[in-house]
């Protein structure tokens, strides 16, 4: 089992990277929503009527959740949202690969690459990182008020 103090540093580093990644990604999309809408549409997963709404909202969810994981009291809530987003992105990329679509992944606005194995790797890593942040700290008891409550170091 990982000692509580090491887990604390590990979670900080993980939250730093994960939050930074999604904040960066969200800001790029917010700056150019039309391009992101085009990228969403290219996946051909959503009915056309919902593409704009997704392109408007998703980047802000990324930004908000990215900031939240940097705040200890909001870290697990942010990680929960990021895990959900990572799952959605993962499904979209896998479906694009299966259908052989030659499209931009849309991950980082104009800096996006083709949706491919590298995109898949980023999404899996993001999902794993978010899942790690959801795991309770070794010193964090499942039931509040139980033995070991004093050792709660995560939030």
């Amino acid at each position, binding site marked *: 089992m990982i000692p509580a103090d090491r887990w604390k540093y590990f979670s900080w580093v993980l939250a730093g990277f994960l939050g930074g990644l999604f904040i960066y990604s969200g800001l790029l999309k917010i700056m150019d929503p039309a391009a992101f809408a085009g990228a969403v549409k290219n996946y051909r997963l959503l009915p056309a009527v919902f593409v704009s709404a997704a392109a408007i909202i998703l*980047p802000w969810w990324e930004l908000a959740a990215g900031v939240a994981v940097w705040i200890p009291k909001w870290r697990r809530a*942010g990680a929960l949202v990021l895990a959900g987003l990572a799952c959605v992105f993962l499904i979209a990329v896998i479906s694009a690969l299966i259908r052989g679509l030659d499209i931009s992944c849309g991950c980082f606005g104009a800096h996006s690459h083709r949706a491919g194995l590298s995109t898949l790797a980023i999404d899996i890593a993001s999902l794993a990182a978010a899942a790690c942040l959801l795991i309770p700290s070794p010193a964090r008891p499942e039931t509040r008020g139980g033995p070991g409550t004093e050792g709660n170091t995560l939030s």
Partner: protein
Amino acid sequence: MLMSDDLKKALLLLLVASGAAALANGLRPDRLAWFGGSGGEQAVPGGSELTAPRSEDQVLRAWRRGGAVFVDVRSQEEYQQGHIPGALNIPAERKSLHLDSIVSLLPVADRVILYGPRPEVANLYVYLLKFGFSSRHLETFYPGRDFLKKHGRFQKGRKP
């Protein structure tokens, strides 16, 4: 295990972010329409709404006839290795650095043919629409893997 407290916070986070998204989109001069793109707001182009790509023969004919502006959306390095004679180079990834070239296209924008890999072409296509180009005047061409390199007529300095 997830606590209901975390779930509540996550939902609150999504709600606040959605509100911020709606507000930010409403304040943008180039705001997107939430559903469908009517009422003077910007419709979402891309994907199937891109004009049908031109064939190699059609591109050759357009080049010979003149009157069309070719835009190479690939990187500068790829452009220098071989491009359609007279084509402008506006790399999709650095389009914001080429605003002058884009603006210079506007008066002669009767027929602009964007060529390169599909994602980059789509990227610049969307961008040009934001600048006031009409989709009726924008055309696309996706050259084959070796088309621009192997096709002697398209090597830099040679003419079809």
